[in-house]
């Protein structure tokens, strides 16, 4: 049973890897389910032993990968509080927000064999919940786009602005218009606590979408 103190860095990397993989799949799935892009660009692939929809468009994939590549160091150091996938309408006002709240669990440990399959099971449940979320959400207006916001703890963003993790892929402080949503309704989707991460997913949607 390995304890946290001795292998801090590896542990952070492991958690960040798992989470970023999951976030990539989740973002693709959100784009599919909420019809942000036409379903023709999506293709069935396998993750966590279940079928998921991933996009085939190279630029979209590259964008999502670059985004998560930059988020990864924040998760490693436990600086990222929330990763938010915002869906915006034509005027760039947020219509829906999928919020992934990430935190460290009270009892942090890597123990053994069953850990990863347990985590896999929990992540599968998240994927399933995203697939059926349109039962509880209203339809989005046409012509939506999306963006990813990260809420960090303390002053981690200052570091991000100084050091460009990926060339020509700058992160900037989000402006008020993109962050503020009028009359949001909160719909919880799923939460999980495991040995390595605690995550909650909920959706905030605007009361009047069109």
């Amino acid at each position, binding site marked *: 049973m390995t304890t946290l103190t001795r292998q801090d860095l590896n542990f952070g990397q492991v958690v960040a890897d798992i989470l970023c993989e999951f976030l990539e799949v989740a973002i693709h799935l959100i784009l*599919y*389910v909420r019809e942000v892009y036409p*379903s023709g660009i999506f*293709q*069935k*692939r*396998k993750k966590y*032993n*279940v*079928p*998921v*929809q*991933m996009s085939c468009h*190279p630029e979209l994939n590259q964008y999502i990968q670059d985004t998560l590549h930059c988020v990864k160091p924040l998760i490693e150091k436990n600086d990222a509080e929330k990763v938010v996938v915002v869906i915006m309408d034509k005027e760039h006002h947020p219509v829906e927000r999928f919020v992934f709240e990430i935190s460290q669990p009270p009892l942090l440990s890597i123990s053994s064999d069953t850990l990863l399959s347990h985590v896999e*099971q929990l992540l*599968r*449940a998240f*994927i*399933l*919940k995203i*697939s*059926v*979320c*349109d*039962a*509880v959400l209203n339809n989005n207006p046409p012509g939506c786009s999306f963006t990813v916001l990260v809420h960090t703890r303390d002053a981690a963003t200052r570091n991000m602005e100084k050091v460009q993790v990926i060339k020509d892929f700058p992160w900037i402080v989000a402006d008020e218009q993109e962050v503020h949503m009028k009359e949001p309704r909160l719909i919880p989707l799923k939460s999980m606590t495991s040995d390595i991460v605690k995550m909650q997913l909920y959706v905030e949607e605007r009361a009047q979408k069109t």
Partner: protein
Amino acid sequence: MDELYLDNIDEYVNDHNKIVTYKWLSLTLGVHVNTAKQMLYHYLEHKRKESSPQLHATYLVSGKLEDKGQMCHKVSVVREDQLEDFKSKMSLIVSVHVYSVQKALLKDSGPLYSVDYDAIKDNLKNCSRYSAIRCAGAVPMSAAELQQVQEIQRAPPSAPENKKSAMNGDANIASKPSSKPQKGIMGMFANKSAPKNQDNSKEVKPEPKEKSPVPEAPKTKPAAKSSPMANFFGTQTKKPEKPVEKQQEAQLAIASEQQHQRTTAEEPAAVQLHKETKADSRSKSKRMEESDSEEEKMEKKKRRRIKKPQPDSSDEDVIPDSPPQMKTSEPSPKKEPETVQHSHTSSGTKIRRRRKVLKSRTFKDEEGCIVTEKDYVSESYSETEDDFQSTKQAPRNNNKAKPTSSSKDDDKKTQKKSSASSNKGSKQASIMGFFQKK
């Protein structure tokens, strides 16, 4: 007592927003599947009468269908809105029942699989406890038998296709009534999808192909047919089968010119047969086929990282330069201008390898004539997405330095070569490969 189940289902569907399949319900409530199906049906009727929030349902329809002159048995999961349409197409309907009830309108069938996954995994040994399908002869194989069978599977990868298709015919008929509790989800899937595969592979065959030799037809079948075979031999054999499939595919692609048709035909069959399609292996086979067509002169190999240098008689005059790591192209100021192509940027974090690549050089010889020579030059390249940029740059550099029109063909050939060879590094099949090859 009898009405309790209605409340249970109501709770699952409305409060938890779950997808309730009959399989999941039977495992959760501990009832026979037929009872579960009836429960779902009654629940649906009940709710529809009460006009409560909208519910969606999917149905499992199984029956006989006339498809291009052949009778086949088809089992499908259809959405409610497509149900009547589907039923009207069938000549004989064997069974129709509710497959699942949920609040959301499902856009694709992926979640239906996920729902049952965990429930069945927990009950792997006895997941057919409540099942209606029985076969006395269906007993899980012992470990020794399983190993034996796996070895037999691996040893002759290109076992005669005729035999395979014959076996598959029998396997299909046998797999329907039998249930393999050990295989769990795969087993469940085989029973449903095996007859579907037969339909799909039959649809693949009669697709119009310009030169479609007869052996091709049974060869496409084993690719699609590996599913019932795999289900007998467990999930472990799926992996050795996949590279075998791809190898066969690649070889056939060279033989016939139907690469593009083939990949699109294979895809629907492959997607149908198993809910797990690895896109990586698929795009790899596409990439292989593209580069195969481009490199017709070269020896056909699966891995092309290291090329064997072919002897070139006119080598003595010209000393090949081993190119520097930076991306430069310098027309030499000497009397014999040489153009050297360099294809890749160096970047510290990526892997570098050396390989020999066919390059052509144009230079002025003693008489003042411009001579073009093709030669193998070892160059280093790295496996990166930079391959894209570098292929664009290499042809540009070439155009700058080459003065004559006679060497334009060679120019394009080298472009083709460097673009083809650098494409191997990129992870996605590149569209540029189409545009650059001539």
